[in-house]
């Protein structure tokens, strides 16, 4: 016997940080979204991220992405306040500025050149990210002794950090309190579009939806295609290490080190093209640990307590993809930086989807940009 199809006005497919932020934003905007989350064994980038809200260095070649990143980072303080209140979950959010360390003169010069390029492409006065030389860097990090190779860093006051697992939990709790329904272990295997409505195949039977938001991360490609949108993406593996809990050492997040509120120092991250392999490697751990110790030699004597990896989402140009299907009822949201962009997703993009159309400012993020015309 086939169970009767369940129905919802709007369904979010995917319960990672992107889907959960959108479900929260939709519920907050008065919709009653149904979020269908995947299986426990599905690839989950939201469990392998570093927890930085990161503006600096993002968006070469795409000023719209620079703008979106800045917009979202600037919305995070407001989001963190209301989300903590709505969910009762502490997020360990702080917007303290962030650093990207440079080892040696070549790295410093390359970083400075990237910032020059980004400042030129953004075209505003008073670019918000600066290079800081070692002396100024030592004043920003009074509790840390820097390795001799550290010549400086880039600093952006708009950067910050949050506990990404708590943020995910908070989005889910707050969304449900606002009327969203969340169903776990409900991966959508197929989408059929008929007469302006969507029928989604799930293990517990079909779900009918007036509108859908596909936020399925690394599983998004086939679903987007069935909804009429070609979206190119690939997984990129990121390995991470975390140390035992240490007394406060880093007053602000950095690349590649972030100290959590509980005291563990996260050491990131590899960027590997290995298909769907979620394994860890000794080489990856050794590479990350060596660089961490070149930056902060005190870490040499600290104990690593966990080493894990996740597959993050990567698009051909590294920038997010937002699109609405030609029939208007399906939305695709895909990005690498689900933490940074969560505030834009929850507070601006979800309300726009609830009203029926993506914000006009997201037009540059359509996957049409990857369709290079054939030359004659």
């Amino acid at each position, binding site marked *: 016997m086939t169970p009767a199809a369940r129905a919802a006005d709007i369904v979010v497919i995917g319960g990672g940080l992107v889907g959960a932020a959108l479900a929260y934003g939709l519920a907050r905007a008065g919709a009653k979204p149904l979020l269908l989350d995947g299986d426990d064994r599905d690839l989950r980038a939201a469990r392998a991220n570093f927890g930085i809200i990161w503006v600096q260095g993002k968006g070469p070649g795409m000023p719209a992405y620079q703008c979106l990143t800045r917009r979202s980072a600037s919305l995070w303080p407001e989001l963190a306040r209301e989300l903590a209140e709505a969910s009762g979950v502490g997020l360990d959010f702080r917007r303290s500025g962030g650093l990207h360390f440079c080892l040696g003169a070549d790295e410093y010069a390359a970083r400075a050149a990237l910032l020059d390029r980004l400042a030129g492409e953004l075209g505003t006065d008073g670019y918000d990210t600066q290079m800081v030389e070692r002396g100024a860097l030592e004043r920003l990090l009074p509790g840390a002794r820097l390795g001799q190779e550290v010549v400086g860093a880039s600093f952006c006051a708009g950067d910050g950090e949050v506990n990404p697992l708590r943020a995910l939990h908070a989005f889910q709790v707050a969304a449900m309190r606002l009327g969203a329904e969340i169903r776990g272990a409900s991966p959508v295997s197929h989408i059929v579009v008929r007469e302006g409505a969507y029928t989604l195949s799930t293990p517990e039977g079909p779900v009918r939806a007036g509108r859908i938001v596909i936020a399925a991360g690394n599983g998004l490609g086939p679903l987007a295609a069935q909804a009429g949108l070609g979206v190119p993406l690939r997984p990129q593996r990121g390995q991470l290490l975390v140390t*035992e809990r240490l*007394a406060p050492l880093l007053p602000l997040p950095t690349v590649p080190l972030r100290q959590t509120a509980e005291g563990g120092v996260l050491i990131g991250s590899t960027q590997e093209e290995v298909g769907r392999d979620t394994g860890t490697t000794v080489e990856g751990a050794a590479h990350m640990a060596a660089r961490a110790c070149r930056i902060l030699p005190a*870490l040499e*004597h*600290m104990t690593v307590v966990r080493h894990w990896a996740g597959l993050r989402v990567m698009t051909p140009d590294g920038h997010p993809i937002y699109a609405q299907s030609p029939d208007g009822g399906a939305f695709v949201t895909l990005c690498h930086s689900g933490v940074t962009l969560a505030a834009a997703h929850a507070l601006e993009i979800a309300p726009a989807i609830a009203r029926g159309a993506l914000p006009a400012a997201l037009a540059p993020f359509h996957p049409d940009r990857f369709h290079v015309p054939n030359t004659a």
Partner: protein
Amino acid sequence: MFRTLPDLPGAAVRILIDGADVAAREGEPLAAVLLRTAPFTARTTPVTGAPRGPYCLIGACFDCLVVVDGVPSRRACMVPVRAGLRVERQHGRREAAP
């Protein structure tokens, strides 16, 4: 709480725990000494400061972390006793000072 077995092998030695002179047997796990030495704890946790003592005794739970001869976060259940070992109970978060 716990007492040593009467036929425990190993030479009788002395070690220091938080500066106190304690009797032990060479080669027994340091955790065993902590279990029979008041206040029977190894450390306090980094987040809430709750006391912890040796628990799994097989190196898995990390509840018996102590400072051994100046090296923090050693698992006492994995450290065999030697004469003159200097042990300190570990409190809260470890310092990563230079």
